[in-house]
């Protein structure tokens, strides 16, 4: 359990946050730049001192202005991966990795992955004898991640760790972050302003705006809420829901996923039947019809019911459809809305192209432990 209530004045900017959420999986902190995300994680790490408030993780009080508690960063056991890596230029990669590990050998240090395990997990085998300045941006971030992991933290903070990388490099790093989440069972607070990253990685979403926490909760619930749309974004707008793998069609290279609304066919996923995962469907990839189309290229057709009509955005409008227990956003033109007479309660057919659901659309949910020993902290 992560509990934060803190106030801090930074010049003209006032941060006033209150947050309580379970510490399992990845907690995504999402907001525009300047919304106070980094200030908040700095307060968690002990690098920024709140004017007032209380911060606690699993009953360990890190800061309490009334009780006069303010643990220095080195005693908080919170790992921090910075946006710019911050590797020590005077040390080799190996000694960078060991910097925190050596200092974490205290009495209260928990168990965690060993040096060799971290090196294997992050694919650092060929880098250990190099100098940080000889590494690429993506390699630097992997080393920074390993360095933080080796301190055996009770919580890992990642402040836009991919923001300084180009898209191909991001694709290099994301699988490693997923492995952390899936194999280490380490709670992570992940700061980002890219919804695509968050959907892929996070379980819990915390929306922050102008120094305040607007809402926090399950990512599926928050992304389907209309009132949060200005924060969760327009272009990337979409809905997120949980599915499980039913079976694979080897002939056509498709995978059938089931959810309460039916079966969703997508290009083949390398996952075993029964695996649970999260899928994100962008509103602009969803079409609506009043009757099920005859022969068409749409592999996915669901019966649904209009629940809500979103705010008008020029010629476009977002429509929220209930399909089983899931909620799906569809972005249609005003003309379609008029001609289909879309209004709350209207029965519609929801059409989704299988090709619109690609590898960026998934976030994995199942978790298994690769390294025993973290149970005590979980």
């Amino acid at each position, binding site marked *: 359990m992560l509990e934060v209530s803190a106030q801090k004045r930074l010049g003209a900017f006032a941060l006033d946050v209150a947050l309580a959420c379970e510490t399992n999986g990845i907690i995504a902190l999402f907001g525009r730049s300047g919304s106070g995300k980094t200030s908040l994680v700095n307060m968690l790490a002990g690098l920024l001192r709140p004017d007032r408030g209380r911060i606690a993780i699993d009953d360990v009080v890190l800061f309490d202005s009334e009780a006069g508690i303010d643990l220095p960063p*080195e005693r908080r056991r919170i790992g921090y991966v910075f946006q710019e890596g*911050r590797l020590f*230029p*005077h040390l080799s990669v190996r000694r960078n990795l060991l*910097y*925190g590990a050596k200092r974490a050998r205290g009495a209260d240090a928990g168990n965690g992955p060993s040096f060799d395990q971290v090196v294997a997990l992050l694919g650092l085998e060929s880098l250990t004898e190099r100098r940080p300045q000889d590494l690429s941006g993506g390699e630097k971030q992997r080393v920074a991640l390993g360095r933080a992991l080796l*301190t055996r933290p009770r919580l890992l903070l990642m402040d836009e760790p991919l923001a300084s990388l180009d898209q191909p490099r991001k694709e290099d790093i994301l699988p490693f972050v997923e492995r952390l989440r899936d194999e280490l069972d380490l709670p992570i607070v992940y700061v980002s302003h890219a919804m695509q990253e968050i959907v892929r990685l996070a379980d819990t979403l915390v929306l922050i705006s102008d120094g305040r926490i607007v809402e926090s909760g399950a990512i599926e619930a928050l992304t389907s809420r209309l009132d949060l749309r200005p924060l969760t974004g327009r272009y990337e707008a979409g809905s997120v829901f949980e599915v499980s793998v039913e079976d694979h069609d080897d002939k056509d290279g498709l995978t059938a996923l089931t959810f309460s609304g039916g079966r969703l066919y997508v290009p083949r996923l390398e996952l075993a039947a029964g695996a649970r995962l999260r899928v994100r469907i962008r509103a602009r990839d969803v079409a609506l019809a009043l009757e099920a189309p005859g022969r068409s290229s749409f592999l996915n057709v669901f019966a649904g019911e209009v629940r809500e009509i979103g705010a008008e955005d020029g010629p476009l409008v977002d429509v929220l459809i209930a399909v089983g227990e899931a909620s799906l956003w569809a972005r249609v033109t005003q003309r379609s809305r008029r001609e289909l007479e879309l209004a709350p309660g209207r029965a519609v057919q929801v059409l989704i192209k299988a090709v619109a659901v690609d590898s960026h659309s998934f976030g994995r949910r199942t978790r298994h432990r690769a390294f025993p020993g973290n149970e005590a902290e979980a």
Partner: protein
Amino acid sequence: MLTPLEIEALALSLKVALASVVFSLPFGLLVAWLLARRDFAGKTLLNGIVHLPLVMPPVVVGYLLLVLFSQDGPLGRLLEGLFGVTIAFTWQGAALAAAVMAFPLMVRSIRLSMESVDRRLEAAARTLGATPADCFRSVTLPLIAPGILVGVILAFARSLGEFGATITFVSAIPGETRTLPIALYGLTQSPGGELGALRLAIISVVVAFAALFASEVLARRLGRGIGA
């Protein structure tokens, strides 16, 4: 090759310069750290005092040292009483004069390098479990090593060449305070000393060059270490 007088003056100069640097380095680090990293009342005053020897006539510095550290001076009596050490008219006095004159150069160079250290690296070290002292030792100090080296070399060179404050404070006692520049000056003032003066001048140039060369090599090695 070298005359006994030359060997004596050279050895004394090296001893005085070395003692001056070794003695002032810890203070130099402390003052540089205070000026670079701390905000306190009197910071401007401290900065001024540290830089005073740079802008004052060396004779004035020597005279003030004499007033303070002579056997009747307040600090002189204190040192005499506490440790039984006499500063005035000894080689230790020469080292003190050299240290005071070279101090601003050393502090300046260390302070500049300390100000250029990326504080975010220190914050990262703290999140990795380093206490402030540990962080200074394991991150700050290695990163400012080139600046410290430059400061030490500058201070060493300045100490080797120290003349005005030294001759005022500790005079020119053969074997005790007659360093290379002072011996050279003495020779220029005595008839028939021209050749000796020239030889001492050449020795000075050679020593200065050696120091510069050594610093260059060391700086390159350190620079490679931190990727500068």
